[in-house]
């Protein structure tokens, strides 16, 4: 077997298309090259971890300093009659100042007359235009009744299963009651109520009990919990909450398209935020979300590892869980009509398969060390990328029943098991594992995620797990 010549170039994404495809195939099957690539990715990741954040206002201060050094003009000192003569006779466009001044005054007089005649007609048109602008500006800040979404994109392909059959909040509540029972429906209602009460004035959620750096994740997950229940920024009882959340997420987007911080858990948070925007666009067809979503998808597509998956930050070793979130976001964006979202999915699926053992168990970064969360997440992501139903059913047998200590695992397990023979056991485990962990105020007891996204992330993930009853109506 010929090993990859330059694994450094491979890991850095410096290989051409044909070379890359062949190298990727080789690395997927060669333990030696895979280990070397992993070690190199770890080195790159270690180098990148030394990165620092520029000081606040660096750009502004630099620009001010630059302007000061270049546009600094020494004043010419003139006194008395010299100053008067200079003002009147100084050349403007090659003519003496007095002549230019007279011409300008005559022109201004004529123009003012014409403007007065035309003003009444223009005012009417302007007011009409302002009314339209006003409707759109209220999209993320106030009541939505005046806004009418346009250009709705239908979901496509097999993903219609994920989006197409979902109805509004009322029909979802009915589905939830029917499939999950009254107690489950009440639990979701109560969790959303608690989340709404914890939203900050700026639309975000503070990771209470977690780490401040995870605000994007907690806000994205909370937004997804509302959207999963059928609450959008345009309709439903929580429209204002969802609108403010989406507005905050959009506000975090930088020029590169990235949503959220540029250090730490960059890509998992970006993927979650992207999924929220994508779901909102897919559900409402609100075209104002298209541009930020396209930017977010572009960043996600561009930050993929040469191995096809995504890691914590650009250039770090990919892992199955971040990749599963990225696939979810891209599949939702694809359903929302963002064409660029589809291209990265095939290699992402191949990457997930490379971490999955023949019996269906998936590891975080290595198939030799499988994990329950990763197995559930990867199976869900693979189903989104077109896993054959028989294979999905076979793999579902190894998905561990959620035990209530990891709500993300519960969410992925539920979504992965829907429509498979594992569903009955998973369904029972979700009810027995999650419902007793809900507090009287609607929040859920801490789980593995609380130390990061706080109670907000845990409660949102628990709600998402319980909402699986209508995310994949069989």
């Amino acid at each position, binding site marked *: 077997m010929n090993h990859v010549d330059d694994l450094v*170039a491979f890991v850095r994404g410096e290989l051409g298309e044909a070379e890359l495809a062949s190298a990727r195939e080789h690395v997927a099957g060669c333990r030696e090259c895979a280990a070397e690539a992993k070690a190199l990715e770890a080195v*790159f990741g270690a*180098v990148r971890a030394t*990165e620092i954040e520029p000081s606040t206002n660096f750009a502004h201060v*630099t620009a001010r300093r630059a302007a000061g*050094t270049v546009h600094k003009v020494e004043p010419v000192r003139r006194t008395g009659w010299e100053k008067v003569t200079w003002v009147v006779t100084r050349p403007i466009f090659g003519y003496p100042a007095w002549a230019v001044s007279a011409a300008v005054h005559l022109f201004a007089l004529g123009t003012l007359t014409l403007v007065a005649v035309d003003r009444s007609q223009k005012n009417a048109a302007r007011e009409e235009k302002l009314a339209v602008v006003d409707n759109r500006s209220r999209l993320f800040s106030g009541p939505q009744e005046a806004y009418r979404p346009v250009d709705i994109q239908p979901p496509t392909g097999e993903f219609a299963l994920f989006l197409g059959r979902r109805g509004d909040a009322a029909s979802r509540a009915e589905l939830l009651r029917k499939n999950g029972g009254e107690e489950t429906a009440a639990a979701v209602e109560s969790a959303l109520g608690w989340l709404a009460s914890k939203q900050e004035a700026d639309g975000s959620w503070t990771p209470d009990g977690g780490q401040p750096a995870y605000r994007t994740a907690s806000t994205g997950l909370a937004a997804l919990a509302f959207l999963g229940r059928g609450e959008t920024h345009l309709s439903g009882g929580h429209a204002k909450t969802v609108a403010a959340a989406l507005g905050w997420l959009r506000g975090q987007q930088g020029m590169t398209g990235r949503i959220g911080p540029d250090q730490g858990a960059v890509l998992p948070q970006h993927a979650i935020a992207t999924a929220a925007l994508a779901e909102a666009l897919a559900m409402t067809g609100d075209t104002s979300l298209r541009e930020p979503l396209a930017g977010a998808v572009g960043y996600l597509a561009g930050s993929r590892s040469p191995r096809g998956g995504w890691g914590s930050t650009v250039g770090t070793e990919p892992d199955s869980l971040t990749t599963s979130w990225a696939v979810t976001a891209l599949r939702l964006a694809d359903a929302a009509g963002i064409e660029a979202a589809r291209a990265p999915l095939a290699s992402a699926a191949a990457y997930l398969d490379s971490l999955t053992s023949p019996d269906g168990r998936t590891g*975080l970064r290595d198939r030799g060390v499988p994990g329950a969360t990763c197995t559930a997440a990867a199976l869900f992501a693979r189903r989104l990328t077109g896993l054959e139903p028989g294979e999905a059913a076979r793999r579902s047998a190894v998905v561990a029943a959620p035990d209530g200590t990891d709500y993300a695992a519960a969410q992925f397990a539920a979504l992965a098991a829907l429509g498979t023979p594992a569903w009955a056991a998973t369904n029972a485990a979700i009810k027995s594992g999650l419902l007793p962990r809900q507090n009287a105020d609607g929040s859920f007891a801490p789980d593995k995620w609380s130390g990061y996204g706080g109670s907000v992330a845990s409660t949102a993930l628990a709600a998402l797990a319980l909402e699986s009853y209508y995310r994949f109506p069989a």
Partner: protein
Amino acid sequence: MSEPSDADLMLRVKGGDIRSFEILVGRHQRPLINYFFRMTWDRQGAEDMAQEVFIRIYNHAKDYEPQAKFTTYMYRVARNLWIDKIRHDGHAPRTVSLDAPVDSEGDTFHEVVSNDSPAPDSRMDKDERAAIVRTAIEGLPEEQKQVLLLAESKGMKYQEVAEVLGIPLGTVKSRMHAAMLKLKDLLAGKLENLQ
């Protein structure tokens, strides 16, 4: 998203548009500051040098030709400034103590997603591991370090690194390869803790 390209912004800067210059600085400040930071391990010094590069670019905006990629142009200016600095004050990269405090960001999701992963508080101290990486980078020969740090600046491609340094593409590839193997060796035995 329809953002103006770097070349568009530079043409506006050429016309005296300071706002476009500020956007350009905002766009490239981070990789440039980090390029200098990883050579000096001095935050303030790195920001001062980055600012100097941007001001040189602004002052010479009238000479900018859109044919040249902006980042190539920017890093050439940066490289020249670095050479000037070494000539002027004999600045040499210093080895950093393992105890030196560094800027680093918080934990990642990785530690919670894997069922078998250790608890966050059992991981190697972030500052300590960053200091180990610094020392390893300092152990690289200067020409390899230059290639590595440029390539790591905003994920610059080998071809662009070659243009900035004025060396053949093949030389960039071989230096990068050698740098990575050496770094891997220098970090051997510590990588498990760095992941």
